[in-house]
């Protein structure tokens, strides 16, 4: 027994030593994405995009003549694993900055690690509490949920609709949206008549919708990521729910229209501009970035680049800019990041400051509607 235990431990010790190899030449950037697990719809395009952008940068000569090296790990959407891997990036790989994680939970979990190690983190998750209150080393690229909520409420106010029903998914994404929906309602004079949730793997939401149909709500706002909202769209059609349905930016991809089919017609949602890049006016600041990203993604992966991939695109590009201006030390990168102004990315035009590490305004979103299986801008 003792032999067994000691050999086991000794082999782990060896494993550890061997991975601590030295190679200082390229600038090392860490990346944590939920490539597998329930949040893989975020993590996979993010990982693909990050690797793609880093390859492009290196092909074009790197940053100030030095190549970037991206070290990517999969968190599987598990907070414990995220913390272990963040430690690995910091202690073993000795990266100068980390991009990701994909989910708010993973991001919150690793914040203490990066704060302590003093390594800048650019999170790709949406939860507003990642950067509120501001943490010295933590930035984010995904648009805050609050901005999406504001976009929807503005439209409702314009149409003089004051009573809504909300239906949110019971995971990190949904509960963050639900919090924002409730917090901002009063500000827009909106009353939430019914507040329901559904499970991420639920396959039938007619019970919740039948209840909402029986209420006096003038609109339904649903907060979730595929496939739940598609089920809701279909169930709403089945029940003949006549009020307008608003979804979140969590389903702003063609996949949603494909899954919901005819039931998607008329559904509105706030989306990053990447969905409607070709419809944007010529003078839009983001236009060039958007078209470049879409073209690149199409070439590499034969698929439509979505705004989740965009979060990673923004993170890598912001980092590239910061390294160019601030050097390759964590502190230099952090200071340069905080000084970033008017950077046109995929998620919006970023302007960080000492008081704002999220960097976006609600102009980052546009309201779109599904018509004839495609997106149109809502005027």
């Amino acid at each position, binding site marked *: 027994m003792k032999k067994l235990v*000691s050999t086991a*431990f000794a082999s782990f010790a060896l494993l*550890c030593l061997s991975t601590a190899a030295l190679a200082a030449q390229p600038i090392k950037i860490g990346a944590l994405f939920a490539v597998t697990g329930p949040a893989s719809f975020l993590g996979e395009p993010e990982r693909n995009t990050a690797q793609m952008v880093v390859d492009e940068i290196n092909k074009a000569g790197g940053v100030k003549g030095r190549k970037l090296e991206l070290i990517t790990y999969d968190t599987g959407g598990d907070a414990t694993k995220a913390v*272990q891997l963040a430690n690995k990036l*910091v*202690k073993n790989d000795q990266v100068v900055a980390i991009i990701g994680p994909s989910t708010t*939970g993973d991001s919150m979990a690793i914040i203490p690690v990066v704060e302590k190690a003093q390594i800048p983190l650019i999170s790709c998750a949406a939860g507003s509490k990642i950067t509120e209150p501001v943490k010295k080393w933590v930035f984010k690229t995904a648009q805050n949920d609050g901005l999406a909520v504001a976009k929807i409420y503005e439209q409702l106010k314009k149409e003089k609709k004051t009573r809504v029903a909300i239906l949110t998914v019971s995971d990190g994404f949904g509960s963050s949206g639900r919090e924002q929906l409730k917090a901002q309602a009063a500000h827009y004079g909106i009353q939430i008549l019914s507040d329901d949730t559904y499970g991420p793997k639920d396959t039938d939401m007619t019970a919740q919708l039948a209840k909402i149909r029986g209420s006096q709500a003038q609109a339904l706002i649903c907060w979730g990521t595929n496939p739940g909202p598609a089920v809701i769209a279909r169930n709403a059609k089945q029940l003949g729910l006549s009020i307008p349905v608003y979804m979140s930016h969590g389903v702003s991809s063609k996949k949603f229209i494909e899954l919901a089919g005819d039931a998607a017609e008329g559904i509105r949602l706030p989306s990053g501009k990447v969905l409607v890049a070709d419809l944007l006016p010529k003078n839009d600041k983001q236009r060039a970035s958007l078209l470049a990203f879409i073209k690149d993604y199409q070439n590499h992966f034969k698929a439509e680049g979505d705004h989740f991939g965009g979060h990673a695109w923004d993170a890598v590009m912001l980092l590239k800019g910061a390294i160019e201006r601030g050097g390759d030390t964590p502190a230099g990168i952090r200071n340069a990041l905080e000084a970033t102004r008017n950077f046109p990315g995929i998620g919006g035009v970023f302007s960080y400051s000492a008081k704002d590490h999220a960097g976006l305004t609600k102009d980052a979103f546009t309201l779109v509607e599904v018509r004839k299986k495609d997106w149109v801008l809502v005027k």
Partner: protein
Amino acid sequence: MKSDRIKFLVFALVVLLMPLPLSGGYLTNVLIFVGINSVLALGLNLLLGYAGQISLGQAAFFGLGAYGSGVLTTAYGLNPWLAMIAVAVCVALFAFAIGFPVLRLKGHYLAMATLGVGVIVNIAFNETVDLTGGPSGLSGIPNLSIGSLTFDSDLKNYYLVWVFALGMILLSLNLVNSRFGRGLRAIHDSEVAARVMGVNARLMKVQVFTLSAFMSAIMGSLYCHVMTFISPNSFGFHFSVELLTMIVIGGLGSVYGSILGALLLTMLPEMLRTFQDYDIIVYGLLLITMTIYLPGGLVEGIPALFRRLVPAKKVTEGSDA
């Protein structure tokens, strides 16, 4: 008995010296979680390996410990050590109360009932948003501290967790060799026979269930102070199953088997990283082949393999691939 004590001392020495070669690297961090998982697996092993009672809801007690400590120390500013004890006692009482009806069930009905308890508790974490922060988690949990010593680095947390773990391992070793432990094994072999022999089977099953819940809750408290952030999906059905896997792979009815299983399954994702996207397939294959070819778990399998290989001096890869 004496060899047992030496075995434990050697093990404790290895554990305590382990961080030296690692020099604060990232493996120290992983080994903290190995310590936590070891005790969780051990608790389940006492229940399943010794008393023969399955539980698919073990993560619930772990989660209750973590959330109990997390909420009490953040929202109510309670002393973390006091919170840990209070929470562990409450969780133990809870387990004791539900233990009577739940452990009356047998086989897959018991599995279902414990699974149900696990699911309900997990939903409660998700839904009591005001208290637990809901699915997006609870952050800002303080580190533990004694006087001016704050457990804020991997190395300090490593010793914190492993001191607790060693204590519980020692407790379990003594327990399984006691009258109580023999009673549990009697229940495992035949509950009716045990009763006939004067073992109060019903009470003892509940007692060991309570003990495993208590151990899990303490580890939950430690987990939340080490992580300083917790979210409900760390305490779901998935984790209960992982614990079960740990003890079956490590060795049912063996204290050290639980630790080996926890070590292997906690380190496995790390070792499989070379397979990249194929790691999930390798993981599934390993589970199947190890169960088929090492039915007694690692704790029996490795020495057996060793004995087979050493005299023959011929390595047959096929037998453990």
